[in-house]
């Protein structure tokens, strides 16, 4: 897993636990990370922790509040507040696996990453390798999320990942993933049908 060693980081870690972590980035760096994208953090021992972006959060501060309540805001004020503010954009990441000594696992890592560890986007080959590993068990971490639009997250993830597999002629990956989702969710009728609705929409795009 050295291909992305020299990729540009999209953020640095603010806080972390085993199952999720939050990185911060500047607004100007925000054009690359996207909801559902596979990201990773490299630890000191060279192991890597993989995660999916589940939420991108832009916090307010007192200045924004004052500006919002103002009658009219000059354009340069808006731009300044957006791009030069001291508050980072928060990128919330759901941990979905790790790699140690080049071996991928879809379990949670033994330890979370540390603050200021760099967050990188995975490249296409890496996405293919991680998501096709084993029997796609990483998907269970997504379904575990509560109080979040899981269906949308899935749709966003699949919209990015499905074409990557299909580019290499692997149409079975998506079929297998659909079956996996049905297996995991079939005891929850409302949730599964919503997920399938989203997948159907995605296919009709």
């Amino acid at each position, binding site marked *: 897993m050295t291909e992305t060693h020299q990729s540009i980081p999209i953020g640095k870690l603010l806080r972390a636990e085993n199952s999720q972590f939050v990185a911060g980035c500047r607004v100007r760096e925000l054009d690359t990370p996207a909801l559902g994208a596979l990201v990773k953090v490299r630890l000191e021992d060279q192991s890597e922790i993989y995660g999916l972006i589940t939420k991108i959060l832009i916090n307010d501060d007192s200045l924004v509040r004052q500006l919002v309540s103002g009658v009219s805001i000059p354009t340069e004020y808006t731009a300044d507040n957006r791009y030069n503010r001291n508050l980072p954009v928060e990128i919330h990441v759901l941990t979905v696996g790790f790699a140690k000594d080049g071996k991928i696992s879809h379990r949670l890592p033994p330890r979370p990453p540390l603050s200021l560890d760099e967050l990188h986007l995975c490249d296409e080959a890496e996405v293919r390798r991680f998501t096709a590993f084993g029997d796609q068990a990483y998907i269970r971490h997504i379904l575990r999320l509560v109080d979040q639009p899981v269906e949308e997250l899935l749709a966003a993830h699949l919209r990015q990942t499905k074409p990557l597999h299909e580019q290499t002629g692997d149409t079975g990956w998506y*079929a297998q993933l*659909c*079956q996996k989702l*049905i*297996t995991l969710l*079939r*005891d929850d*009728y409302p949730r*599964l*049908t919503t997920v*399938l*609705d989203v*997948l*159907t929409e995605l*296919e*009709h795009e």
Partner: protein
Amino acid sequence: MENSTQTPNEPSPVIGYVTGGGLEANLQVRLTVPPQEVQEGAFVVIDSNNWRFYGLVTDLQLTAIDEHYANQLNSQRFAPHLANYLNSQTLYTNLAVMPVLMNEKGPELDSPEYPAWRLLHTEDSDPISVKTIPNHHSPVKLADKADIADIFGEENNQNIFRVGSTREQGHPVCLNLDKFVQRSSGIFGTTGSGKSFLARIILAGLIHADNASTLIFDMHNEYGPDTTSSDTKASAPGLKGKFNNKVRLVGLGAGTSFGKLQPDFTLEIAHSDITTEDVLQLSQILNLKETTGTTLDALENEFREDWFNAFMNMKVGSMIENDEGKLEPAPDSVAFWARQAGIHSGAAEALRGKLARLFNRPYLNNSPASNGLKEIINTLQAGRHVVLSFGKYESELDYLLVTNLITRKIRDAWEKATTEFQINKIKEPRPLVVVVEEAHKLLNREMANQTIFSTIAREMRKYYVTLLIIDQRPSQIYDEVMSQLGTRISGSLGDEDDINAVLSGLPGRGGLRGMLAKLQPKEEVLMLGWGVPMPIPIRSRRYDQQFWIDIFGAERKPMDMDQASSFLGFDDDSD
């Protein structure tokens, strides 16, 4: 009809796995193949540890892990492949399997446990009634040819006789004819269900195997002479034509003939062979009163075996003038005899009047040319088979009188032979199957106590005599007789009462009832009862040319003139 192409003897694939159930409530099996690949009544095997279980599919049920999945049309809401995945994971079919038999098969031949197991089990065991159940998730397969042969035997064209084949895969299903004749049995089915062809097939099997004699009361001249099928208009060979030496065709009354075919001998019954018991058994049909018994007793006391003839010759209403000029019954009159015998003359005259229907039966004769009754018994005891054709005497009275009379003689003869065998152990009596058509006429609730047949059904197997009853209305047959039937082979039956009658006294009636009700109107039959290891619906064998080729081997064609000359050594080339 039977599949002409037999499936090769390869192991059947797994069709599902056990998910629940038990002995009482049937096993539940989750089907992993489309439901159309399995039919109600399918014979399945379930391997679990060292045991193999044999069962019968009694129901198929569509179900879902959540009824919402079944209630909406997934294919309309979701992308087609998603709907397919969803349906395959959430909708399924459950089989209800009635476990019937089990057999200890032991570990796999190549497993390390096998030698130790074999030491403890030196002989292969036979299947026994099911006493336990397979484990959860035991794989379920449709029985293959070998499984069916394990249970029903392997056809040998002798006592293990093929009656048909399984409906799904066409594997042969056999009947053990030795067991079949040990108890009374029945063949049932509505008109046109192929009942009489099935009876012919089984009778041909019995005659060919030749382990028992058969006496066929052929009311409609169907079994002896060749006939034409009423449905297909095809010619159907009779048993006489096919088993000429083994079968004797007996015609009732002098001068009976069956087209070109002449009977081997005719049956005329001597008046002296008719007992008062025979007449009493006709009480219902002759509408005899309660006083009949007394009158008949008096007749028998006075005239012994000549009573029938003597009574026939008495005149009704014949009077003479006495010395005092008064009219009184003439000495040859019924009234004269009645007065002498102390019987009410009115009752005697009424009986004489009612018996007139018997007196004018042409086959009843004071001095018949031959003793047909004795010849029938001798023929049967010599190991041959008799088809008694009623010819033109098709009335119920003829049928009741003659069958009762002959059967009573048979009972006497076989009881005697059995007693002798028990004493001197020299000659075991030849098993005899008495084939009765339209059996409800003889074995209905009212008649069953009067006719000899219910006794045969109940008790005569100890004396080597059993019944094979052929009928379209089993519900009309006395329950006590029905419950005695060992083997029952039933074609399609429309009436609920008939279905219940066929199943009377058998375990697992609930599941079998549906199976019986849904048989195809033709060709499909359900075999069940004591004589078969487990109930099984089958596609019956066809009574056609192939049947006879299977039985006798390929026919030998007659030689033409050239072949004959060559065979005899008159070859033209020789000079």
